[in-house]
């Protein structure tokens, strides 16, 4: 079967497409699944569930010390209390970046990722280059993302080998005093919440 890069062209694309269609047809005819429900799931991932949820969580934590404490204490409970569209399951753990420590999240065994607050993981997160190197050469991986941290900063890599899901709480950029949650949220990228990026600088969002 083809790699995803090849999906756009060629007969291998049709083979995958046909196999998936056959599977869905058989499961539907047998009454196990309802295609209309599948449509709604796809729509939710395409339109409702995404890193904007995580960004709002981080922005609130930057502005509200009590919320930040609650988030670091019990991520699932704190995020659930915000009543987001995406319903957050158990086992969310927020880990805080500080000047002394930078956190980075990986799943070496497959693709565990905090979907309910970040949406579906990007292809690179599920790829062999990231999964192999994140635990052995995290500074090299950060360099692939154009991120260079001081040599003295501790790097903590969290390998998601169980049902715990980790959300990185990045450091609030300087020059953002008095910013609203909405404005702060614009600085917070998906990669900053995985730990392979840093928040944007204020001048980048103007």
């Amino acid at each position, binding site marked *: 079967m083809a790699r995803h890069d090849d999906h756009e062209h060629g007969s291998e694309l049709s083979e995958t497409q046909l196999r998936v269609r*056959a599977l869905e047809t058989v*499961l539907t005819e047998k009454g196990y699944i309802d295609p209309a*429900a599948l449509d709604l799931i796809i729509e939710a991932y395409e339109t409702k569930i995404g890193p904007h949820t995580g960004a709002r969580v981080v922005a609130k934590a930057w502005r509200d010390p009590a919320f930040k404490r609650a988030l670091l204490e019990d991520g699932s409970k704190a995020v659930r209390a915000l009543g987001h569209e995406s319903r957050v399951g158990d*086992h969310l753990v927020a880990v805080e970046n500080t000047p002394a420590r930078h956190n980075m999240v990986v799943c070496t065994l497959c693709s565990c990722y905090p979907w309910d607050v970040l949406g579906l993981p990007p292809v690179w997160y599920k790829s062999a280059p*990231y999964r192999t190197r994140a*635990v052995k050469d995290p500074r090299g991986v950060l360099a692939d993302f154009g991120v260079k941290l001081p040599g003295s900063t501790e790097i903590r890599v969290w*390998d998601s080998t169980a*049902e715990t899901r980790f959300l990185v709480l990045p450091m609030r950029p300087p020059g953002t005093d008095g910013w609203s949650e909405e404005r702060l949220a614009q600085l917070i990228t998906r990669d900053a919440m995985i730990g392979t990026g840093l928040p944007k600088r204020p001048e980048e969002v103007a």
Partner: protein
Amino acid sequence: MDGIHDMGGMDGFGKVEPEPNEPVFHAPWEGRVLAMQRALGYAGAWPIDASRFAQERLPPQVYLGASYYQRWALAMERNVIERAFAGADELSAGRALRPGNPLARKLTPDLVKQGMTRGSFYRQAQAPARFKPGDRVRTKNIHPPTHTRLPRYARGRLGVIDLVHGCHAFPDTVAIDKGDNPQWLYTVMFEAKELWGSDADPTVKISIDAFEPHLEPA
């Protein structure tokens, strides 16, 4: 199992290549695969760990050659066939030829919202936690031929308990239909040099989430 999926620390796969403005799905069939997985999970067709184990059992060259959602599709076909929901002949024919094993529930449009909420993996503790934060532990040197959450790069290594996550269903048994077998779950932290040798970056620490049966006091 010591499969190709357990790839932490391997060399030679090249640089990480982020894709600018990546779409949620790269083709419509990817969404269908994801959604079928969710719907079958809701229906209780098999536990999510059995999906993971089915991917791990793909031949290494297939695993590496397939895209992410292709792996999911192949694993789903395997579980559908092994659990007698459909035969290989039906998947080839693209139509149902006979009834399959019954399922207790079905995800219909009105249930999608709850069907998409992640389930809880907390389970009632069978015994007090054996370890507490700060305890030194050694991961076991195990090589089960079935699904395990203890990655190869962190076996037989000295670490420290960082977090205690409560008692969870144990994927190593769930994946092979041997039940929840609840176990305490911990984040265990290792110095990079413990995993990668004395030349490793002294500022790097790596943690895994490890279940109690994978740990012994050190």
